[in-house]
């Protein structure tokens, strides 16, 4: 093509500004972080000689505990968000077009107020004298009573996903502010729109007459929902999981403002090491760990998607081959 807009010069002209900016302020810093992990730190808050001491110091029992804590809490946040988001997405997708637009819009609207201010409003609401604290205590006491009837394996499961407390409940120790429960609650609050939106987008394309067909064939509502609707929106669910899990791993503001000293995540530790203790190599190493725990589920999801696509393609090919063969058979 002779179009001057397609020349190499034009390509360079429009590529260079954004490319150089991102290379300089995104790619290069990432390399620097990685390089810093192979340095020791010096007492004046700078970066010392090349060494493996930083990686060796990460074995310090403090760090694996924090990494594990972060993954566990992010898992909790993700489970709660998805459990709440699926019925919401289902309900929105079943509305008529006008209502769908209104409700989907109103789910995103809270994002127009400052995120920190909303977290701060939560902090005020969760105050030990407030009504939410009384609700929380009542909830803990009821669940304690209810779960005492369950077999211990189930009790453990509910404790794991945060629906029951592991320690005996008392009004003095079980405050919701400065606890893990507050972090999970407010994180679910902040991330749930990101869980609803992709599932809703998938549910919009879902053919709801399939559910009716299942019911006509004798499936119970819940069974039809689990076996027909959920597999139908699974791609939306996978994106929702990523959209909640990744920011949850990186969350820093919510645990800092609401988690107290109980709930310290990788994000808080990175900030502590980088700003307060001025231990640059340790902060870099923790950041590297965090990047790995983000990229791992991401890679898994990409692998899962490509496998799904490949399987779908193969199935279509098989069926069309079978169809072609049978067609030829009937013609002959």
């Amino acid at each position, binding site marked *: 093509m002779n*179009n*001057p*807009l*397609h020349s190499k010069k034009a*390509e360079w002209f*429009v*590529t260079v*500004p*954004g*490319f150089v*900016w*991102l290379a300089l*302020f*995104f*790619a290069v*810093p990432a390399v*620097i*972080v990685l390089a*810093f992990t192979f340095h020791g730190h010096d007492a004046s808050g*700078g*970066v010392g000689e090349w060494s493996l001491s930083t990686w060796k110091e990460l074995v310090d029992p403090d760090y694996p505990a924090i990494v594990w804590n972060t993954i566990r809490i992010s898992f909790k946040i993700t489970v709660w968000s998805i459990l*709440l988001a699926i*019925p*919401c997405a*289902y*309900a*929105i997708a*079943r509305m008529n077009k006008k209502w769908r637009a209104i*409700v989907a819009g109103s789910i995103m609207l*809270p*994002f*127009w*107020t*400052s995120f*920190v*201010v*909303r977290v*701060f*409003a*939560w902090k*005020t*609401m969760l*105050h030990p004298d407030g009504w939410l604290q009384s609700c929380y205590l009542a909830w803990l006491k009821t669940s304690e009573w209810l779960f005492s009837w369950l077999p211990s394996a189930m009790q453990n499961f509910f404790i794991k996903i945060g629906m029951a407390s592991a320690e005996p409940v008392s009004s003095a120790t079980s405050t919701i502010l400065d606890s893990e429960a507050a972090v999970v609650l407010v994180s679910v*609050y902040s991330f*749930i729109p990101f869980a609803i939106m992709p599932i809703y987008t998938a549910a919009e394309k879902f053919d709801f007459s399939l559910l009716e067909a299942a019911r006509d064939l004798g499936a119970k509502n819940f069974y039809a929902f689990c076996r027909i609707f959920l597999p139908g929106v699974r791609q939306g669910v996978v994106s929702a999981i990523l959209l909640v899990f990744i*920011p949850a791993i*990186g969350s820093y503001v919510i645990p800092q*403002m609401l988690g107290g000293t109980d709930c310290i995540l990788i*994000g808080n530790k*990175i*900030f502590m090491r*980088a*700003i307060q203790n001025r231990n*640059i190599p340790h*902060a*870099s190493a923790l*950041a590297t760990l*965090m*990047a790995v725990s*983000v990229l791992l589920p991401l890679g898994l999801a990409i692998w899962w998607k490509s496998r799904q696509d490949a399987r779908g393609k193969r199935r279509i090919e098989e069926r069309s081959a079978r169809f072609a063969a049978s067609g030829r058979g009937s013609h002959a």
Partner: protein
Amino acid sequence: MKRSMFSVVVLISVLAFLYVPIILVIAYGFIPNGITMSFFDSQGNFTGFTLKWYEKIFSGDYSVKSLMQSFWLSLTVAGISTLVSCVLGTTSALALHRWRDRLQTIHHALVYTPLIMPDILIGISLLMLFVAVRIECGFWTILIAHVTFCVSYVAMTVLARLQDFDDRITEAAFDLGAGPWYSFFHVELPVLLPGIITGGLLAFTLSIDDVVITSFVNGAGTNTFPTYVSSMTKHSRNLPCVFVLSTLMLIFTCVMVGISKIITGRMQVTTQHK
């Protein structure tokens, strides 16, 4: 057919869950007692509403000086970084749309990765860069950081708009004798403007709301509105002023989004007519 009531009940409770804090943010701006942050006094009587915090903000009272400074800094940073990231994002989107070579593959990865990385990793890596080259943190480092995370959002929004772009109209402009600059400003830019405005608005809201990245690169004593709020304790004297400012910001954003909806809607209509 019977609708599942359960899902509707969950949806309504989630909406309530999302809106209660917003309503409180607005209500706290009218609270008489800024220390206890309660609308009730010690006897449990309702104390009513007050406009004194609004007065304080608008009269430029000395006690809210540092809060207002942080607020204006946020607006300045958001404004400048929106402009810069619109320019960088649009050129990146044009490049990604028009060429498909190895350079653009790397370029695409560079634009896309910041979108999936947690903010805190962008913050810490920028801090490491500034430590490595020994730059003092302050206004300029905040600005650089904000442009960096906004560029990708603008680029992706404009790129989505470019998907519907009919490349033949540029070709037509060339055939009719337009130069590359003339065709950019008179043909492509008007068509892309709704996308750029949407991307810019997104960049502005992200920038004005960012606390994580800023708290790494702001240096001592330079605070934007969000970092100021996050470092505040509950019993700060002028706490309701923060809620007043965020109510004003909410109104401002609603108006901005409304205006941009009207503008982009009108533009789409005119381009369709042509």
